[in-house]
């Protein structure tokens, strides 16, 4: 899921040797498939939450690529986030079909409610394939429909402000 806009998380601490070993084993395991770099990066994000700068040389070495090649790919795609995710993630669709049903109001309300929060990050996405029931969005990865500002508030009542 792409998360755009400023990440509330602080810069990541240096990766530990344990993580390096894990990333290496992910890369080695997938290195045999055709075009392995995207599957590897997806798996790293799945397992560790984000791609750490220190993961890049490890992956580059396993695939026999330059660090710049790997970094170029990481930075091209929205999914390969480079900072740890917040405890809760809101991703709201801002594409046309959801705009037609009031997505901008929902986005503005969420951005305002969680401005500066380190617990909740608000990102934008462009179409979740739920365009007949918008505004759509995901809350901690789960798809929701008809997300008016009120409904978003109700669904996230328990989250810290």
């Amino acid at each position, binding site marked *: 899921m792409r998360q755009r806009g400023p990440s509330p998380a602080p810069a990541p601490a240096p990766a530990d040797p344990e993580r390096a070993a894990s990333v290496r084993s992910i890369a080695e395991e997938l290195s045999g498939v055709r075009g392995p770099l*995207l599957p590897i990066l997806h798996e790293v994000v799945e397992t560790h939450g984000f791609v750490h700068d220190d993961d890049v040389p490890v992956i580059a070495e396993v695939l026999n690529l330059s660090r710049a090649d790997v970094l170029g790919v990481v930075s091209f795609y929205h999914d390969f986030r480079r900072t740890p995710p917040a405890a809760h993630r809101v991703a709201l669709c801002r*594409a*046309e079909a959801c705009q*037609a049903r009031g997505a901008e109001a929902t986005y503005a309300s969420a951005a305002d409610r969680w401005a500066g929060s380190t617990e909740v990050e608000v990102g934008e*996405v462009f*179409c979740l394939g*739920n*365009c007949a029931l*918008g505004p759509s969005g995901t809350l901690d990865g789960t*798809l929701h429909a008809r997300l008016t500002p009120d409904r978003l508030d109700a669904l996230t009542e328990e989250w810290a402000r």
Partner: protein
Amino acid sequence: MSPVVWVPCDAAARSVGADAVADAFAAAGVTVRRNGSRGMLWLEPMVEVETERGRVGYANVEPSEVDALLAGALDGTDRCLGVVDEHPWLTRQHRVSFARVGVTEPTDIAAYRAHGGLAGLERALTLTGEQVVAEVTESGLRGRGGAGFPAGIKWDTVRKAAADLKFVCCNADEGDSGTFADRMLIEGDPFTLIEGMTIAAVAVGATEGFVYLRSEYPHAIRTLRRAIDIAYAHGVLGGSVLGSGHRFDLDVRVGAGAYICGEETSMLDSLEGKRGEVRAKPPIPALQGLFGQPTVVNNVLTLSAVPMVLADGGAAYAALGTGKSRGTQVFQLGGNVARGGVVEADFGISLRELVEEYGGGTASGRPVKAVQVGGPLGAYLPPAKFDLPMDYEAFAAADAMVGHGGIVVFDDSMDAGAMARFAMEFCAKESCGKCTPCRVGSTRGVEVIDRIRAGTQREANLVLLDDLCTTMTKGSLCAMGGLTPMPVRSALEHFPEDFGVAPATADAVTDDMPESATSTDGGARP
């Protein structure tokens, strides 16, 4: 005997609580089966109860209502839809590619066969590759991903190319706002896509295939992976397709949140593990595609039409539709629409029938102001244009495009100037950055539209916007930059007042819409 209840597992149904409804039925002790969605999305979660008459539907079911529903308390109310197969919204449609979606359990291969599945592949295996391609050519099937290129011609190019290794790649990136048919087909009837890809592979001599599926569709990814495993277990995929001796291996690759990766050459680079930058053509992917090998690239719906073409013959498919747009198209009604969902109909159906009769107008109850057809790069059309038939050529002639069949409805609160600005902004965000007209032009476009709307040197800036649109149209490598002017110019042409412009002035900008803006897609050639 405990009743059998069907609760959709489609992502749209889940987004309005279908999983909790399924759990509630299970807790009540009934047998729950999960189908795809029938595509009447405004009725989701739509539950179906098996009866002697057929499957009876109930609209917008809440978990708390399960006991009442089972006791018959909803019967006779407007929440009870009667026998779903007799519902007028469905019986009016012509479901070919979507025939099984919502009817069967998505990964039940026995049900797939029982409902006509694998007949196309079985027939294809009795024909030569040349004969299979000839059927597809005769069917008139054109690419459903946006550009409408004839599938048979593309396949024949790949078939004739001499190479040790060829690929079939399915474009399931479905990034266009207002489109969700690829997703619903994959979640609701994945074997149709697998069968279509396998037929393509057999026809052109390909041994490996990939489905490039966007990461925004986690349910579709899971369902397709499961279906592929089952297809292997049943010998549909693998070393000898249905015992024919043809090898075909199929894998799912997940996109990573880049709209441009729906453009076919960018998708191929992404599959190779690179940045998704658009390649210059030639060489065409049919000759030098994935890893430089001859490659069929087709949209989900193109490939999903193929099993029927082979099962019933190309002529049967070609008998449907109008002009050079043959067969059916899966239209998707989204945005501010009362009855949103999937309408599969023969080409030639009017926009009015789709928006007003199927869609029932806006969800808000206010008048329809415009629709955008064909995704973010498609034109905005006012109700005055609603008699347009859905037909590639008729749309091109009206400076619009059918695209992937998505129709997004807006009510009268829509600000067309803001939507034009958004089109430029989206292009700036999603541009792959390879060429200047797109990368820089779109950012300039946002600024120029802002100035027009603010009334700052409006006349001069309208001329500038016109120049900019022409430069983007003519100078972009692919349709991202090349077609972004389409929503911008159509918004200005039909709704000049939203730019603070009197109608006569707007004409100057929109009159000379170049031919290339509407008739081609940079990502379109085979």
